């Protein structure tokens, strides 16, 4: 157990699958704290520091605190086969504490791997590669150009100051999502977002576009993983807001360690670390954070964040409980790293792909996905959307294929506005909807076949 199990209060030390109750060690730890009032509960030699979770919660000394968090990260990485030696990982970096820590940890892991490589004789295990992507949203937010330049400058210095192996940095404007369409991206993005009347819907659409853009960058540059810094607090907020938006069915897809429904699998190694812990760690280690770019959340998402914050203040392990509850929901088949069958990959690497806790989860049913937010669709949602199919216009078909949440908060209701909205969607999204790498769209088409009047058009 990397993170001295039950002694840490707000951590997600418990794995989602085994409903392990608090072990008697809790008592031992408490006793320990009572007898040595001012010593770290783990090493029992140094003075504990306040890790920001709770004022009375100073349990670990500086080193043990850091080791504990790194341990949670490392455990998530190895148990879920997130990073193997032949991988090339792209770290999504926003400048906030979570992504700063994930960058640091991935870097430390790579640094250790490099040292092992240098020391090894046969060099059979390569060192995984690391890149960093920063999505520049200045075209949507109203920051001054100086602020942005300063922020990007800071990011460059953060990345270049990391010890070798050196890491490529991609600063990508959000409007690049349209680069394959060959239009003025800025203008088009603005129009697309303006077409969404609901504040929450706008915010969520932007998040989907970000993810899509990260996929694009990763895919174009040969990366095999996208690493996100989503921490327990963030995931807890997602659990509640997804529930509030009626996305109960697809929720379990979003909150697992691994999400392979994308071309490049997305991994969340900080799933078990709380925002407070990560903040504290940044403070302790002097990791630089960019405050500027953390835009406030509005609408439903804002309401949910403040609700979760209040709950967390009332009970410091609340976020962790929320994530654990949602962790008990059944994940999807794509919530794991696909097995490497490629015989070109060195055996040593393949052997490294451990999967301790990875049990095959559920059927390999062919899910269909919402073309906007990529969430798996409930069967009932699918059939109910069929009834709304009067015409066979592209925009209508796309709209009918969306999840009910996107239909409500993102798609315009009025047909002509809807058509315009669909025409503005970026190419990668449209491609996904049309061809659907899991054959989702054809599946949908099959089901609506009887309702289509002419079958002459739209033959792929």
């Amino acid at each position, binding site marked *: 157990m990397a993170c001295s199990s039950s002694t840490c209060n707000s951590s997600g030390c418990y794995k989602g699958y085994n409903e392990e109750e608090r072990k008697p060690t809790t008592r031992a730890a408490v006793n320990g704290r009572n007898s040595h009032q001012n010593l770290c509960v783990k090493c029992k030699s140094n003075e504990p520091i306040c890790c920001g979770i709770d004022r009375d919660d100073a349990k670990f000394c500086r080193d043990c605190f850091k080791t504990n968090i790194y341990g949670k990260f490392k455990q998530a990485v190895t148990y879920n086969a997130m990073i193997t030696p032949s991988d090339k990982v792209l770290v999504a970096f926003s400048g906030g504490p979570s992504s700063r820590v994930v960058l640091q940890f991935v870097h430390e892991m790579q640094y250790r791997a490099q040292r092992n490589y240098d020391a090894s004789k046969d060099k059979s295990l390569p060192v995984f590669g690391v890149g960093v992507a920063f999505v520049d949203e200045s075209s949507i937010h109203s920051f001054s150009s100086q602020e942005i330049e300063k922020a990007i400058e800071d990011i460059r210095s953060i990345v270049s100051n990391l010890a070798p192996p050196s890491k490529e940095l991609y600063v990508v404007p959000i409007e690049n999502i349209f680069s394959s369409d060959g239009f003025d991206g800025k203008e088009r993005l603005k129009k697309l977002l303006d077409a969404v009347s609901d504040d*929450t819907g706008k915010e969520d659409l932007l998040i989907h576009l970000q993810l899509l853009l990260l996929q694009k960058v990763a895919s174009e540059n040969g990366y095999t993983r996208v690493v996100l810094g989503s921490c327990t607090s963030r995931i807890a907020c997602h*659990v*509640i807001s*997804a*529930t*509030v*938006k*009626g*996305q*109960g*069915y697809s*929720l*379990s897809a979003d909150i697992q360690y691994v999400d392979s429904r994308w071309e490049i699998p997305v991994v969340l190694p900080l799933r078990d670390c709380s925002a407070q812990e990560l903040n504290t760690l940044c403070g302790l280690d002097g990791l630089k954070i960019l405050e500027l770019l953390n835009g406030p959340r509005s*609408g*439903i998402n804002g*309401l949910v964040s403040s*609700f979760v914050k*209040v*709950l967390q203040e*009332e009970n410091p392990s*609340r976020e962790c*409980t*929320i994530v*654990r*509850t*949602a962790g*008990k*929901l*059944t994940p999807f088949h794509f919530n794991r790293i696909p097995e490497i069958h490629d015989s070109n990959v060195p055996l040593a690497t393949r052997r490294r792909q451990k999967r301790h806790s990875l049990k095959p989860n559920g059927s390999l049913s062919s899910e269909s996905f919402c073309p906007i937010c990529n969430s798996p669709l*409930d069967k*009932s949602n699918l059939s109910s959307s069929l009834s709304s199919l009067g015409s066979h216009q592209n925009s209508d078909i796309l709209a009918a294929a969306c999840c*009910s*949440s996107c239909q*409500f908060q993102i798609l315009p209701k009025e047909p002509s506005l809807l058509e315009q909205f669909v025409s503005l969607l970026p190419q990668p999204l449209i491609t996904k909807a049309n061809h659907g790498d899991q054959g989702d769209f054809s599946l949908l088409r099959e089901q609506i076949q009887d309702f289509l009047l002419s079958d002459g058009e739209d033959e792929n």
Partner: protein
Amino acid sequence: MEADTKPKKYGPRLCCICNQRRAALKRPKTLEQICKECFYEVFEEEIHQVIMENQLFKPGERIAIGASGGKDSTVLAYVLSELNRRHNYGLDLFLLSVDEGITGYRDDSLETVKRNELQYGLPLKIVSYKDLYGWTMDEIVKMIGLKNNCTFCGVFRRQALDRGAALLKVDKVATGHNADDIAETVLLNILRGDIARLSRCTSITTGEDGPIPRCKPFKYTYEKEIVMYAYFKKLDYFSTECIYSPNAYRGFAREFIKDLERIRPRAILDIIKSGENFRISTSTKMPEQGTCERCGYISSQKWCKACVLLEGLNRGLPKLGIGRSRGLNSDVKKDIKQGGGTESIESKQCGSLDF
């Protein structure tokens, strides 16, 4: 709430359903501006549809309405007797009340129920804690204080309701839980990590394997609309919270739901939808159901929870059976919940939930 029920402007705005009468209110669920008559119609019709689609009742059944005298159960009694007549459900309806023995609260609300008995012509049965258990809530609180008292009340109420229903020989109990209550319960079960209850709390009918199933015809009905209906129809109801339930924790969730409703009315329905669609594996083992050796009530343990609590009271050890201490009765607690209310220690609602 008053602000919403009164028309703000006296412009010539017409009801957007009938297009004839002047709009008198903004419907909380959809924000449509409609007239009173259309409101009554859609309100009642939606409940009728829920009853039909979910086949809540069969012709000839005897149905007890859990009546506390509060707004939800009063409106439920009124609407059910109305629909029963209008659509020939062929139901025998009864009012069933539980007298917990709380002076200044239940005695007053029971007066309301007694008036309802006459107003709607529904026979009323009152079962009291004093008769069933030998203790009133007043006496229990005097002994154990204001902490955990809701655990006693919740456990006792569930059983009292079932016993009352058995005395009336009814086939089913209908309770007044509304959409807000259910959405709130979904959230609370997530916050609390209770996956077993999370999977059950959105079912419209519960306890079908038990002696007397319960159903919630107001599952999709907004609390605000219930209040509005009662207000316009000038129904006689009692609206004071239980004097023993401070409700801090549930209050958070309730407040949150009201905030959500303000910016997105459909959020309440979306939460219920999420609750229905959560992917929860059905292989989770359920406690085996048996009967209490002492009183014969359904129980997964040797003794039912009520008997354990009662034994504690009678022996002067009121802590007996409270908390998860032995894990022995934690399973029983799961059963308690099925009415939608959550009678656990930190969170409970005795006042505005009707059983």
